[in-house]
């Protein structure tokens, strides 16, 4: 029995636990304090952990293809640096630009973590041009060895670039920019350590600053250090290192020829600002690549952590207003904070790191724990204010009355979060598990610690305190009376009809709900973030972009010397080029056609696949497996399909295009097209998974909540009164998502579960009191509702405000998915409260009947 403390099990539970908690309060508190210390120590070791692997929906067929070919076709962790001339500048063929490009190539080459042999720009020796001359081929480096900044050389470089066929890749379409390609090593070749993506991302950013910052900051020794004389420059950086903590921070210098890095405190160094010789005011550098994304997300995540303080402050204000005492308000808040510490501690003990995606879980834990804290504090205040109990008595009564419904409500939350486990994406499951740890922490911190602490509270002037409570209650009374009109059937009909109309309208709008990202750019970051503007500029200026889906053409061994096989892949390539959203396609086919044309003196009339296998062998042998265009026995040929962006509709269009081609293939075709790898391939799989999971998760969520509600009330009325408002809000949220252009993604899908799991509390609290008033205290429904609101209404409002306060700070986040989650959760927390207060009594007007007069109280409840 959810809200009935007289159930047999409940009574047993309370009889057993109450003496443990309240019998020896100092021991209880000491044990909790010791565990908290352990948890805090554990939590302090928690690390940010951004993994690519756990973002994959493992069971999806695309991902199985992805994993099958990852080792052959990458997995390439590419970082692109596009050096472009600013507006008003000319093309790249001028000495100053080329000098900067040369410097940038060098800087990228020497960046730790970069796979040096694979750095590529027009300044690297692997970039050559080839031209047909009368007696064969002639070639050379695009930038000749004898490069000098002369006008003639500029002319020659321009001509070589055109002959090398690199426009669109290494040189921008309009020749006003050039690219430095790099690939990152997955592990350090010397130490074997895994690549620290976040650290590399910061070094990549430093490379950009080296050319864009007008000032260079030299770190020099104040005093001699071992072999180094005073005044020696230890390092040069391009952003001002002097901050608040500069003098006390450790600075590490890895000097050439020395094994151990030299560690110095900031106060052993002087910083000298000098003009930066590499600075070029005419250029800009755009950087794109997975590592940079991870770095930017990690930086923004740390920013979000700072919002936690703001969240605490806002919640404290709400609590203060509610309790009328800044000191009392600190207790539920402090317990909430402890719950967060426990949650993080358990997380680390269980071997997890904190993923940027899951950074919102601590906020949620705080929200949930504050929401329960309000219920507890509210009851405790009521005991003191209206019954005149002492702090200790009030605490004990609170424990007796609320420990069971509270734990039931929390278990309902656990079940709600548990449904998120149905989404087969590692990162989401991790989030669900993390939240469940949080709930365990909340049970301990709220249900045991808070009443225990409250019992120690000294109310200096109980009379004044009581008056504050009563004053506040009186303030709300007119509102409660007005709201109670909903229990009159004519009004109830109007409310229900309005509710139904809103539901129908929301249902209609939400037909346009999309699965996947609705905006260009990396979805985690804001559309106008530096990274997204960078990658947008790269897509605009170059023929290749950062969004690619690779379709693997599987065929028999040596398929690439079979004309029919190659012709089919060629047809596929052209078919995809015509699909809306496709920017360009690259595969072995185009490469072989180019070679065949080159062997025919560059005559475009030979830009085709030779029909004989000798010709195909000749054209194909130019490409080693390392080119990524074929596997060792040429039984798998990837088709790179560069897409304009990765919006849901673009991905849907491209996937549908591939499927149309597959459907039109002959059943005995030698070519089997397999989706998909590449970032867009992964997104397509994720969108699919989310689309499939969405309905399933919601269904199970409501089944589970319904089961919990049924166990609590054992009545049809309870089910309808609690569930329908909740469902209405879910549908409404979908409409809001359509309205705000938010798609259903890995990050927004769990929001529904979180919000419903927490939102159900309102209904449970309101209905339990209302039912008790009607069934046991035999009040008229309208009066019963006024009484209910008087007891719980203010708690509901405060809970909604506190919940909203704890998530609305996410709107300030630099991460788009957190903004979206913040918007949705804030809306859902508030809407659930409103729906419960308005719709629940309207349903009750038709479903809840007073028990017949001569009944023994509680008889109707205890008979199952």
């Amino acid at each position, binding site marked *: 029995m959810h809200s009935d403390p007289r159930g047999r099990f409940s009574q047993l539970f309370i009889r057993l636990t109450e003496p443990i908690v309240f019998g020896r309060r100092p021991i209880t508190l000491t044990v909790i304090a010791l565990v908290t210390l352990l948890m805090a120590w554990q939590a302090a070791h928690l690390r940010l952990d951004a993994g690519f692997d756990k973002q994959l929906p493992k069971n999806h067929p695309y991902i199985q293809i992805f994993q099958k070919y990852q080792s052959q076709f990458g997995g390439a962790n590419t970082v692109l640096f596009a050096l472009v001339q600013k507006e008003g500048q000319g093309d790249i063929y001028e000495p100053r630009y080329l000098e900067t490009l040369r410097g940038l190539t060098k800087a990228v080459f020497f960046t730790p973590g970069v796979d040096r042999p694979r750095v590529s720009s027009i300044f690297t020796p692997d970039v050559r041009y080839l031209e047909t*001359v009368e007696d064969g081929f002639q070639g050379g480096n695009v930038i000749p060895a004898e490069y000098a900044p002369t006008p003639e050389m500029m002319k020659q470089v321009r001509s070589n670039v055109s002959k090398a066929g690199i426009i669109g890749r290494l040189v921008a379409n309009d020749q006003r920019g050039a690219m430095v390609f790099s690939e990152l090593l997955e592990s350090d070749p010397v130490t074997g350590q895994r690549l620290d993506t976040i650290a590399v991302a910061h070094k990549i950013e430093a490379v950009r600053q080296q050319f864009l910052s007008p000032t260079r900051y030299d770190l020099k020794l104040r005093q001699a250090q071992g072999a180094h004389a005073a005044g020696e420059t230890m390092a040069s950086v391009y952003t001002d290192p002097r901050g608040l903590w500069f003098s006390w921070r450790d600075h590490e210098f890895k000097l050439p020829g020395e094994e151990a890095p030299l560690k110095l405190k900031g106060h052993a160094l002087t910083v000298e600002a000098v003009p930066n010789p590499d600075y070029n005011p005419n250029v800009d550098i755009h950087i794109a690549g997975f590592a940079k994304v991870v770095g930017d997300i990690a930086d923004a995540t740390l920013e979000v952590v700072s919002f936690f303080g703001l969240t605490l402050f806002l919640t404290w204000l709400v609590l203060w207003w509610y309790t009328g005492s800044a000191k009392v308000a600190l207790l539920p808040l402090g317990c909430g904070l402890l719950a967060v510490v426990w949650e993080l501690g358990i997380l680390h003990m269980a071997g997890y790191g904190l993923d940027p995606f899951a950074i919102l879980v601590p906020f949620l834990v705080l929200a949930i724990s504050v929401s329960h804290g309000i219920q507890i504090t509210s009851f405790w205040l009521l005991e003191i204010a209206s019954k005149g109990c002492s702090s200790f008595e009030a605490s004990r009564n609170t424990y007796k009355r609320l420990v069971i419904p509270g734990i039931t409500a929390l278990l309902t939350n656990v079940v709600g979060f548990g449904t998120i486990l149905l989404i087969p994406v590692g990162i989401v499951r991790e989030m669900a598990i993390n939240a469940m740890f949080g709930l365990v922490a909340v049970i301990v911190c709220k249900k045991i610690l808070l009443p225990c602490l409250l019992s120690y509270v000294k109310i200096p002037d109980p009379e004044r305190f009581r008056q504050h409570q009563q004053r506040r209650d009186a303030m709300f009374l007119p509102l409660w009376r007005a709201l109670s009109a909903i229990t009159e059937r004519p009004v109830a009909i109007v409310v229900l009809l309005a509710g139904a109309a809103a539901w129908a309208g929301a249902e209609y709008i939400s037909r346009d709900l999309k699965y996947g990202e609705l905006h260009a750019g990396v979805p985690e970051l804001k559309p106008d973030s530096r990274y997204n503007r960078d990658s947008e500029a790269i897509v605009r200026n170059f023929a290749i972009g950062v969004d690619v889906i690779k379709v693997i053409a599987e065929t028999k061994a040596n398929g690439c010397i079979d004309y029919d096989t190659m012709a089919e892949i060629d047809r596929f390539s052209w078919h995809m080029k*015509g699909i809306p959203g496709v920017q360009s396609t690259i595969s072995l086919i185009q490469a072989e056609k180019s070679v065949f044309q080159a062997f025919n*003196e560059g*005559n*475009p009339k030979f*830009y085709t696949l030779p029909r004989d296998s000798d010709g195909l062998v000749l054209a194909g042998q130019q490409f080693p497996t390392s080119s990524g265009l074929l596997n060792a026995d040429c039984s798998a040929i990837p088709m790179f399909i560069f897409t304009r962006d990765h919006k849901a509709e673009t991905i849907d269009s491209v996937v549908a295009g591939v499927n149309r081609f597959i459907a039109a293939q002959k059943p005995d075709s030698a070519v089997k097209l397999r989706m998909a790898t590449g970032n867009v391939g992964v997104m397509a799989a994720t969108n699919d998974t989310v689309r499939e999971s969405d309905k399933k998760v919601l269904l199970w969520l409501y089944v589970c909540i319904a089961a919990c509600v049924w166990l609590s009330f054992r009545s049809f009325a309870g089910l309808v009164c609690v569930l329908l408002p909740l469902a209405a809000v879910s549908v409404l949220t979908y409409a809001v998502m359509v309205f705000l252009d938010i798609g259903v993604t890995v990050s927004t899908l769990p929001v529904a579960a979180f919000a419903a799991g927490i939102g159900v509390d309102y209904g449970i609290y309101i209905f339990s009191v209302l039912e008790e008033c009607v069934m046991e205290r035999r009040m008229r429904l309208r009066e019963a509702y006024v009484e209910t609101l008087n007891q719980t209404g203010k708690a509901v409002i405060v809970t909604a405000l506190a919940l909203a306060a704890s998530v609305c700070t996410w709107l300030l986040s630099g991460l788009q998915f957190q903004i979206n989650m913040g918007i949705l959760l804030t809306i859902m927390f508030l809407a659930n409260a409103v729906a419960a207060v308005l719709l629940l009594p309207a349903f009750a007007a038709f479903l809840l009947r007073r028990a017949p007069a001569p009944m023994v109280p509680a008889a109707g409840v205890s008979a199952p």
Partner: protein
Amino acid sequence: MKSLRTVVLGMSLALAVLGGGVALMQSARAAIAPQPSDPSPLAAQGLLLDIARAGARLVAVGERGHIVYSDDGKHWLQARVPVDALLTALSFVDDRNGWAVGHDSVILRSRDGGQSWQLQNFQPEEHKPLLDVLFLSATEGYAIGSFGLFLYTQDGGEHWRNADPGLFAEAGRHLNAITRLADGRFVLVGEAGFAAQSEDGRQWSALTIPYQGSLFGVLPFGEHGAVAYGLRGNVFCSAAPGTQDWNSVATQTTRSIFGGTALSAEELLLVGADGLSLRVAGCAQSQAQLGRAGEGSLSAVVKGASGLLVVGERGVQALSTAQR
């Protein structure tokens, strides 16, 4: 369906053999069926290799059996074509009758100004692409191609016969282009500096051009003259091929030249690799003017009703006005 098509093809090939008598050697296997060209929204933006006027209409051919036509030079429609081979050249004699040739020895004919096409020849087993086609009337025409392939028809392409007088097979060079000069004589150019001329199109004699590289095209120039162009910016001019020497025209470029057209009686416009355009106004050294006609590699140029149009690896482009 597939077997039916093979049977029909087999029958038509058999008929061609029986009716043609001396038609080209047919492969007895006839195993490879022609694959119809797929309709594509990008046909006018993909690789196009030649463009020609059919009356007021423009028709262009290119990769994957793409043939596109337009009445205004702006809006292009894709024709239905029974093969998807790379088509290399086309020739129209009036506003209705035209022929296109390409890889797999494909010869296509249209009787309705380029909207629909019938396959007249398809021999993929030969591995001999056709590289140019020239029709003199609705009945008489030439198709030339790799390794000295030289075909002639007198019945509008119903039957083609090998009309090589021996010269071409002996040279064994790709024959890249054929044209008829203003005075009615023929000039043909090909691989490795190979060139030939003929009074009547039947008897051919080799021409000596002082160049060892390939010539990709030849255009009539003046009353009796011709201009040949090709690899690495090489342009040669003769006031009367066969009787007068070929002069090299200085072009100041090493980009290859793939196509051209007459702007007027005295001036030619040539186009080529990497947007190259070249105006040739005479046989003297100083009379070539270098410029830029578009994006990417350009293969052919034609004068349309609303101005010049070029085709190349990026499809049809209006000639950019930014001529340097």
